[in-house]
């Protein structure tokens, strides 16, 4: 069951809630706030769904009106109709929306209607699936009923008149379109009728289909071809070529479906445009009835028509009209318009050493936030995309938690215990060097620092740290090599508490993220000592590997910990920042993946070369 459907503005005002309108029980906790805070504001809005506690959430935007639609349901249920329903609600609500109005009590009836329809559609789909898998032969008839909805209706009618040829077919389709129009006007009876009508129609269809099947093969085939053409055209027109890439895939699926006792893959429903999907289903079904041999021809024809349509698309929009639109400022941004600008932006980000995966995700998220928006007058698409990306980057890099370590140190001091920082990272990124820099910085602010040499693995590590300690005149706690680092760290902290030291800096051995035994040891160290700060040391030179490193570190720390609430990485220390010129992408990759802020930036060889990240200059450099 759907728990709640909520409509609110980007400003945060709830416009309509199904719980309130239909008198259902309120949600436990606040999954919606969690969604906004940890998903939508983190530039992950291009994800498919989000789960919190027992709830799963799906959402869609109306960017032009600044509306957000969120559906909440129990995680264990796999509701197939949620996307469908959200799209329908979005379409209907945007028509009655008025920025000045704040209560939409009358939307309750419309919603109930939409909900019932969506449920019925999903129910039918499921039924057809079951029937198909159990009884292959009669399943055909059931499957015909399967693809419900307005277009399904028209096709059902068309197929019914199969023998009589193409003209009748087109009539059927027209009536279908009419149905659609009335729907858009807000009257839902049309569709209700459609569903019922279809049920009544479905039966004769089967009979006729069987009759036609043998003797009148040619006539039936014509119909199917026409239908296929039409549906394809529709799809292409609707999507304006952007779906073209996915097209071949769905085609292949269609071919597989032709095997008689195979299950139709309904999984696709989850992420493709419902209208598109339904169209495809219908063509599949018709093709199945007509038999296999003609399929190839069909395919050729349809692909031809597709090409034509695509070529027609841009031609229609001459440069004059597009310029006029840009001056009038009435240009609604579509995904296909954004694509070139986004691609350029993605390339630019990747040239700045941002991991490919992250550049991709960011661009998707920006596209999701811009699609459907109206372009202002005298603005170009590329500049609009650029500003949106700038905002997004600024938002990501702005720290979520306080990065004022000194205050936390003072707070710990008041509680009479040392503040513990653990430095973790892969080999050779500069953990010990930057640990010494941090120690120097802390010493400058009149704090007493103890070093803990917990790198009991690499030879010379303890000596290296001892040299730093001697130069900085600070105590170092060491136990030699071949000891359990977790125990060494614990003893170091105890020692520091006794000596009234303010800060303990724990140096650990460098380890590759895939090295299971070493990661287990690190997890033990962190869980045993519960440090105040787990600092991931990463080099700014790293490219695509940054994603892997941080995800694996976080994952291993979570998986291998003995306690249920595992400690993850709290902050990032970016080293070798002086070596990279303008390729600052690693900062973005790391922050996006872990959600942790960059606390320090190491930028040189001397003790003083430790800086804070300047977010604005990073953003500027990334988009330069």
């Amino acid at each position, binding site marked *: 069951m759907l728990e709640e459907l*909520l409509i*609110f503005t*980007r*400003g*945060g*005002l*709830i*416009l*309509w*809630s199904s719980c*309130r309108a239909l008198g259902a029980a309120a949600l436990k906790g*606040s999954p*919606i*706030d969690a969604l*906004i*805070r940890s998903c*939508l*504001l*983190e530039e992950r809005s291009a994800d498919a769904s989000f789960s919190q506690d027992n709830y799963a959430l799906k959402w869609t935007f109306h960017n032009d009106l*600044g509306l*957000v639609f969120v559906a909440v349901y129990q995680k264990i249920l796999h509701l197939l109709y949620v996307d469908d329903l959200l799209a329908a609600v979005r379409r209907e609500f945007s028509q009655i929306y008025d920025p000045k109005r*704040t*209560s939409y009590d009358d939307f309750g009836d419309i919603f109930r209607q939409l909900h019932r329809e969506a449920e019925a559609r999903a129910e039918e789909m499921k039924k057809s699936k079951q029937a198909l898998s159990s009884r292959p032969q009669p399943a055909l008839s059931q499957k015909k009923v399967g693809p419900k909805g307005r277009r399904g209706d028209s096709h059902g009618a068309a197929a019914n008149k199969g023998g009589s040829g193409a003209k009748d077919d087109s009539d059927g389709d027209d009536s279908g379109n009419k149905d659609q129009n009335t729907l858009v006007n807000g009257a839902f009876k049309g569709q209700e009728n459609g569903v019922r009508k279809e049920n009544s129609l479905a039966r004769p269809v089967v009979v006729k289909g069987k009759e036609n099947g043998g003797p009148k093969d040619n006539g039936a085939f014509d119909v199917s071809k026409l239908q296929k053409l039409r549906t394809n055209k529709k799809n292409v027109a609707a999507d304006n070529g952007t779906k073209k890439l996915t097209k071949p895939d769905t085609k292949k699926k269609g071919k597989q479906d032709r095997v008689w006792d195979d299950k139709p893959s309904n999984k696709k429903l989850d992420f493709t445009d419902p209208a598109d999907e339904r169209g495809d289903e219908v063509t599949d079904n018709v093709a199945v009835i007509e038999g296999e041999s003609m399929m190839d021809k069909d395919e050729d024809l349809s692909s031809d028509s597709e090409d034509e349509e695509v070529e027609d698309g841009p031609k229609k929009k001459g440069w004059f009209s597009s310029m006029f639109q840009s001056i009038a400022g009435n240009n609604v941004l579509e995904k296909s318009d954004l694509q070139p600008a986004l691609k350029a932006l993605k390339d630019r980000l990747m040239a700045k050493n941002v991991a490919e995966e992250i550049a991709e995700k960011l661009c998707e998220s920006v596209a999701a936030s811009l699609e459907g928006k109206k372009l202002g007058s005298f603005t170009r698409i590329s500049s609009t995309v650029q500003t949106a990306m700038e905002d997004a980057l*600024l*938002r*990501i890099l*702005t*720290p*979520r*938690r*306080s990065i*004022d370590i*000194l*205050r936390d*140190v*003072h*707070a710990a001091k008041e509680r009479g215990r040392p503040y513990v920082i653990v430095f973790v990272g892969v080999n050779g990124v500069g953990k010990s060097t930057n640990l010494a820099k941090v120690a120097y*910085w802390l010493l*400058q*602010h009149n704090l007493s620092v103890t070093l803990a040499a917990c790198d009991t693995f690499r030879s010379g590590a303890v000596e290296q740290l001892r040299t730093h300690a001697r130069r900085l005149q600070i105590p170092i706690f060491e136990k030699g090599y071949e000891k359990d680092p977790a125990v060494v760290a614990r003893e170091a902290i105890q020692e520091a508490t006794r000596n009234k030291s303010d800060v303990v800096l724990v140096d650990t051995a460098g380890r590759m993220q895939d090295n299971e035994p070493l990661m287990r040891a690190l997890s033990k160290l962190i869980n045993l000592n519960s440090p105040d700060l787990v600092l991931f040391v990463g080099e700014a030179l790293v490219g695509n590997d940054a994603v892997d490193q941080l995800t694996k570190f976080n994952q291993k720390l979570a998986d291998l910990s003995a306690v249920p609430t595992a400690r993850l990485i709290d902050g990032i220390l970016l080293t070798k920042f002086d070596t990279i010129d303008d390729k600052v992408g690693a900062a973005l990759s790391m922050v996006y993946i872990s959600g942790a802020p960059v606390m320090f930036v190491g930028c040189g060889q001397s003790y003083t070369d430790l*800086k*804070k990240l300047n977010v604005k200059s990073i953003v500027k450099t990334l988009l330069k």
Partner: protein
Amino acid sequence: MDEWVHQAEVWVRQAESWIRQQPTEQIYIAAAVVALTILLLIVASCLKSSKPNTIVLSGLSGSGKTTIFYQLRDGSSHQGTVTSMEENNDTFVLHSEQERKGKVKPVHVVDVPGHSRLKPKLDEVLPKAAGVVFIVDAQDFLSSMQAAAEYLYDILTKAIVVKKKVPVLIFCNKTDKVTAHSKEFIKKQLEKEINKLRESRNAISSADISDEVQLGVPGEVFNFSQCQNKVAVAEGAGSTGTIIFCTASANPLPMLDAFHVDC
């Protein structure tokens, strides 16, 4: 080079002779029109920038900014709110003033989202601010105290706030709840926290300054009266809407006169 100069001289001469040919009235009228347009533009820009009347609602996420925004505008918080992703921004006559006769001035109110990722938005609106309302969740104060103090510290040390002496009102929201803390307690705790912050922030090396001004008198324990701009504390409950800014009658801040009638 010489050729060009010569050419220019020729053109100047031509222009002069052309002007001489025109009737004098026409030239005077043209000059007058130009002068008048410039004057009008200057006056318009002066009027625009002379008095900012923007009230900025700030505070942590979940403290009730959006609720108060709609309470001020419409007199009700409608069906509740969720975390804001964008600022709410409107110019309106306060709901409680709508029935009043006489001159009522519309106020421009901006509700800045409180999520820490959206903090940079605050910098965009502060230059236009006539007053800042910092909203604190009085019910859930202890857990959010540090973060709130940090946010307030950031606002109080912004160069533009100090330079223009933008008054700040600390508003303790949700005092209708039984477990809410009193405004005196909250004020004292915030002062204490800011005092700590002042030490740790001043200690940060000059390379990484984010705050632009020193706060309070060095060497003394911080309290709000040391600020150059006026800082006042008030309490109320945004969700019920009955007692918004109820202590504002004793409020020295001129900008909040617009608000205090909302009691």
